[in-house]
């Protein structure tokens, strides 16, 4: 199996705090890889490194065999043209309408006619169920609609690799299911490599070919969906069975914790 992305010995810090602790993983080409993990374990941080927004303390990130951590900004920009990214907060430009947001990467990187670009934009917006909202501004959309507009923008240049940071968070089940179908279509029809961070068990079972699970900055699982279901790792079982972390304090400890001692 060919790998689109390969991460070797990645260590990252925010200030002095170590976030990712020497992780290695590979993401197969043309497949959907889901990254799982508890809140705050470093999933978004990992994505920011994969697209070269942050420089790691140590380690290398190979995209199609080339290490992006040692690239100059201009080389990195060439690589980024093949990427699409949906940020966790959508990150639409508030000063531009939805249509202009989606058109922006196309206008910047191609010399297409305005009318062609408009057709492309309408197609992408239709794909995420936002046809007719092109003239709206991000502040006039709901959270879920912003997410979908962000997805349309990420797809604008038909990238080779697309990253989604929690695409279905805050969406109703029907729209979320539509999104899962869209992700399947991107893989099957457009042969994209897709990396999705998500917590939705339903959509993991539906879209994932390959699963990577992070816990407290380390990779605790990577393998296919079948392997995940068969895994006996206690953290994975807790995640799949939706169990709460049972930290049973005795009353005295609890008192100490809430008293801040």
């Amino acid at each position, binding site marked *: 199996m060919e790998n689109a992305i390969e991460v070797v010995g990645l260590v990252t810090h925010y200030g002095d705090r170590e976030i990712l602790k020497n992780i290695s993983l590979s993401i197969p080409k043309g497949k959907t890889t889901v990254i799982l993990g508890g809140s705050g374990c470093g999933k978004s941080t990992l994505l920011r490194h994969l697209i070269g927004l942050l420089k790691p303390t140590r380690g290398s990130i190979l995209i199609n065999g080339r290490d992006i951590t040692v690239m100059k900004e201009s080389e990195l920009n060439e690589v980024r043209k093949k990427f699409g990214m949906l940020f966790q907060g959508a990150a639409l430009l*508030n000063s531009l309408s939805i249509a202009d947001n989606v058109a922006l990467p196309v206008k910047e990187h191609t010399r297409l006619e305005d009318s062609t670009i408009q057709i492309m934009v309408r197609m992408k917006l239709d794909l995420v169920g936002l046809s007719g909202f092109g003239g709206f501004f991000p502040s006039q959309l709901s959270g879920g609609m912003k997410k979908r507009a962000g997805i349309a923008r990420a797809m604008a240049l038909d990238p080779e690799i697309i990253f989604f940071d929690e695409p279905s968070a805050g969406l109703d089940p029907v729209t979320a299911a539509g999104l899962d179908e869209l992700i399947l279509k991107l893989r099957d029809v457009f042969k994209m490599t897709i990396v999705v961070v998500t917590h939705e068990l339903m959509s993991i079972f539906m879209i994932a070919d390959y699963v990577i699970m992070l816990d407290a900055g380390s990779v605790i699982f990577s393998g296919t969906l079948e392997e995940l279901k068969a895994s006996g790792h206690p953290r994975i079982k807790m995640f799949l069975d939706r169990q709460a972390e049972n930290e049973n304090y005795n009353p005295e400890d609890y008192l100490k914790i809430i008293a801040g001692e």
Partner: protein
Amino acid sequence: MQIQKDINDASRVINDIFYWAFISPFKGRPIRIRASISEMVKAGYNSVPIVSVISLFIGIILALQAAYQLKRFGALVYVADLVGVSITRELGPIITAIIVSGRSGSAFAAEIGSMKAAEEVDALITMGINPVRFLVVPKLIALMVMVPALTVLSDFLGLFGGFLLSVTLLELHPVNYFQQTINALLVKDILTGLIKAWAFGIVITIVGAYHGFKVEGGAEEVGRHTTSSVVASIFLVIVFDLFFTALFYFFT
């Protein structure tokens, strides 16, 4: 350490701004004309009323203050010289720069800062769009054009304010006053004022952009950097004014 990092950040911002404004357009990455025009409207056109009113008042005040001294020597007609020279050489550019610092410098820092806080800047980078080229260069172009243009307006209204007061309260003859102003002013005076104004525009843009890009985190940071940006750009405008005035004094 902090200072070293600040200097480092500042020189990177300055470097980037000059590269994307003056070098990359010749390498086939054109400047965003339409965005520049919209920045000109925001920074320049919308400042016209406030610059006009303040300059007019300053002209009147200046004439009054000059008359207070000159009257004792019976040299009232020299009010025209004093007003003319101080407005064009000094007050026009500096008043304009201070107003633009307050209006546009703060707006630049707030706009870029909140985009940074909302990951919009990261989104631009991910799309392979340089945020300096996309956000800062249009503002730089706008201020390089608009601060001198507003200075011309300020000069004109300042002179007019002095004229108004002199022909009414001081009872100077309008034609005499006009003649006296024309004789007192050299092209050099107006030109050095405009050169200063152009430099102030660059200073204000750089300071606003620098503080905007320094924002990490949320709304509170945006507010803090907006304030710092106004204070810093007024301070630097005055420092540059001192520098240029000294330069012109010795070399013209």
